[in-house]
């Protein structure tokens, strides 16, 4: 009898644990990852532009930007989105956060290199630029070869 109770307990505990595990797994799968979030945004945004719903598209763009702007690390999935942000200052900031997420992705360095001189023009922004570049250097596992290749080092 006692043996049977033990089995009973074990069976139900095992079932409960299994349900918990499976539910967690299902929940994890169900949740939108950054990739999913960006894909959903991109699909809707592109169609809005195609059907000339520019105001709605602008609103959506701003909404998404507000959502990601404060993240400490930004998933590389957002790289194409960051490229479309008109304010270059915000872009360089977000590029740094994407580099923190994946320091080995060359696209990020390349895109950053294209705009960095516009954000920090030589006249009057040298210090700001150097601070920014120094900050890049401190990103864990930053790829110094790529920094060098794209001239993202202090001269």
């Amino acid at each position, binding site marked *: 009898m006692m043996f049977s109770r033990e089995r009973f307990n074990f*069976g139900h505990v095992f079932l409960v644990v299994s349900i918990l595990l499976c539910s967690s*797994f299902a929940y994890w799968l169900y949740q939108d990852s950054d990739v999913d979030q960006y894909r959903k945004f991109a*699909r809707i945004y592109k169609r809005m532009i195609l059907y000339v719903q520019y105001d709605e598209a602008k609103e959506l763009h701003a909404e998404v930007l507000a959502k990601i702007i404060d993240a400490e690390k930004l998933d590389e999935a957002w790289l194409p989105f960051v490229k479309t942000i008109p304010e270059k200052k915000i872009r360089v900031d977000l590029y740094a956060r994407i580099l923190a997420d994946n320091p080995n992705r060359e696209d990020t360095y390349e895109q950053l290199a294209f705009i960095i001189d516009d954000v920090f023009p030589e006249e009057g922004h040298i210090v700001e630029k150097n601070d920014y570049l120094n900050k890049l250097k401190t990103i864990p596992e930053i790829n110094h070869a790529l920094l060098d290749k794209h001239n993202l080092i202090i001269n």
Partner: protein
Amino acid sequence: MTLKYSKGGSYWSVLIAMLLLTGTCSILFNGFSWMMLYKKAAAPYLHYNLDTLHLFTNEYIARQYQKFTASSLPEQTTLPTFDLFVDEKDIESLERDLPSSAKRQFKQSHLKVDNPPFTGEAQFRYRGGLALHWLYEKKSLRLKLPPFSTYRNERQFNLVNPSTLHTITDWVSYDIARSIGLLTPDYFPARVFINNETNGLHFFLSKLDESFLRKNNRMPGSIYSGDTVFISNLFGSSLEGEKVFKTENNTSALWVDERLWQKDAARNAESTSDREDIKTFVNIINESDPLSFMRSFETLFDKEKFYLFWGLDRLVGSYHHDYFHNHRLYFDPYKGKFEPIAWDIRYWSVQVRIPVTPLMKQVVLNPILKYERDQIMYRLWQRFNVKHITDMVDKADSVIRPEFAADPYRQQPTADISTFILDKMMPLSMDEYADAINDLKQIYNIRHGLVGQSFNSVFANYTIENRTSDQVQITLNINGLNPIDFNPWSIIPEHLREDVKLFRIYEDNEQAVLIGEQNERLYPGIAVDIDDKLSRKDISVYGKETYKQSPLHYRYMIKGKGVSELISDNALTAKNAITSTPVVINKVDTLADASNTASLHPWQLLFDKQAVNKDIELSGEIIVNDDLFFSEEQTVTILADTVFKLSKDRSIFFYGKVIAEGTETSPIKFERKEAEHAWGSIVIHGKAASNSHLSHIHVKGGSVARRNLVDYPGQLNIHDVDSFQLEHCLISDNTVGDDALHVAYSHGAIRDCEFNNTAFDALDMDIVDVTVSDSRFSNIGNDAIDLMNSRSVISHVKINGTGDKCLSIGEASNVTVEQSQLTDCVLGIAVKDQSWVHVNDIRFSVEEGSAIALYRKNPRYSRGGEIEGERLYGITERDVDVGDYSTNHLKQGAYLPLTKHLNDAGAGVE
């Protein structure tokens, strides 16, 4: 004993728990495996992390869900079904080490197709560069049939996975391309089953090879594919190889290095490694002198086809024929022209920017060529209006949609996952598909509007400068995208025109504008900038240069007493040269700076052009010590009794119309200058030579010629000419060349001609529609008449003595032969390779068993010859040799004794 525990429910709890965990683990395991396989085969740079696992696991689930929810295939369909039966071990072998294992080996299979019916052996492998073709459950297949086995006249073809979100863009694009006359592969949807299991909706796609050319009535010739950047890294090697194919500018080296053009087909086995044509192609593109380029482009390129090809890209906004890949090129060995092949016209878009390849750059910077291109573009734009394309899309969609709904492997490429360098394929729902089709129509709607706007882009203004009281300079500034048609005399009030002179001024040259001259065309220019802000990807697609509108200035000088007082500054008028809409040209104080304009100034041509005598008359004795050339714009009249005495290997090339009309007593002769030395060829080549007429000419003692990459195998050659007439001629005693008279890509008539003592074939015709009548052939070295892929009526012809066949009719020809005599030939009539011959009233005097042979010779054709008709004199059924896959439709009564011929009223040529 164990079952007893179930009373307490423990057993079921454990069982359910195990099931749940097994299911979870299975999903996780499959997601993980899929991720690992993808990394190994397609994305070695991929990082394993939770996000990536999440993506691949979700993808796995979505694909399984799609399989279970796919509807049944519609019972009624117009699509052909390809059933492939293969050994599972072969599939395993193909997938053992993707992607290399999939493409380096062909496996044996049995293929059955319902429409048109086909059943037989076929080798297969996976094909295609991108992972979508070989990594997923739905594969893109290359099928290869054995010799003499064809499906739709092709021995090799593809069944490809649709590779765009819009699915049908390729289908619609190829249909447009074909309808405008571009060399286009067959492309249509098909069902594919592998070992009785559906493999989803595929598209049949021709392989670009010799069969493709023959099927499209083109001579076998070189086909090149220009695909560079992915060559090195598609099969898993590192990206380092990429650099090999790039110039110092980081752009693709495709346009500067002929080695990057892979030769996919050749004129014949001997020319497989001959690359002279592609070297010439690359050299022309890199010609630094725009005038030299223009000449070569007009000579060696089928301009109209290139304009149509580019026009189609611009019409649909396809940027897929870019700086580094997706180019297919054919060089026609008898037309002597390069021609684009419509290939991968996809990714319709609203974007304005279309890649400008170095070839297109040469055209864009030549305002005259650019205008020719834009005119054709305008016609395309008018023809393919929004409704036209919407209807095409709807029609394609109505066929595809039910098939796609039943496709368990529907997928779409997405560029929205930035983790992947190349587009990742993801499952595609029918809702997404429906949206995609609507989006496609909207894309074209916007695109059509944008292109339409570009035709209205014309800006023009002018300045007046009084140089002296008797000289006034008017300078017109033309900007925008389109030229104007302008009458320069409109500057001057009508009542003054008799009293003044008007000149065009270009640099230090001046040229009088004659009174009564019609409108002239004034073109805008283009400026070229280097864009330093392009990403590596953009550079690889577009190159580093950007193009923008830039002005061109045109100076006129008016000279006349006191003219400065008389010219007013009213607005001038002109017409948009594309749309014919009016253009107002206002006076301004200063003109826009034209110093950045990189275009050729069209007036350079005006002043460089040598005066050409357009009508040339030749007579008397003409000694030809150097090759003679007559251009497209020249009509040459050769008078009776003219004798051309040609030196060794010298030739005469007529690219314009020829009227050579001798008489019976005063023929026109082409003969050797030195009796012991054969001259080259007489060549009549090109559409401008259409309606040429040669009568009473004697051509004797010639050989062959080669010019502008074309080999002319006859002593007389007629290539690419419409409506020619050749009559009362004597063609004889050639040496060296394959043919005495060679005709290719032409329409016309040969009447009352005599062919004697020829080295090999007397009359060789390739891809023609020509009638041959009342002609005589004797002492012929090889075949008297040799036809390939031609339509012809041969009547009242006498052939006497050939080294081979009297009539050799091959490679899908369709010929009628009537009221003729075939005497002393090794073989009377050979009907080969899908050719069809109708005979009527033919008198044979040949060896027994050598009258007619029907057979297969070229392995690219699955059928042999067919013959039908009546009244064949001098032969019996035993004289007709019917080979495999050939058909003799002649009835028993068609064979008649020779004696009967003499009695039949009106029969024969005697």
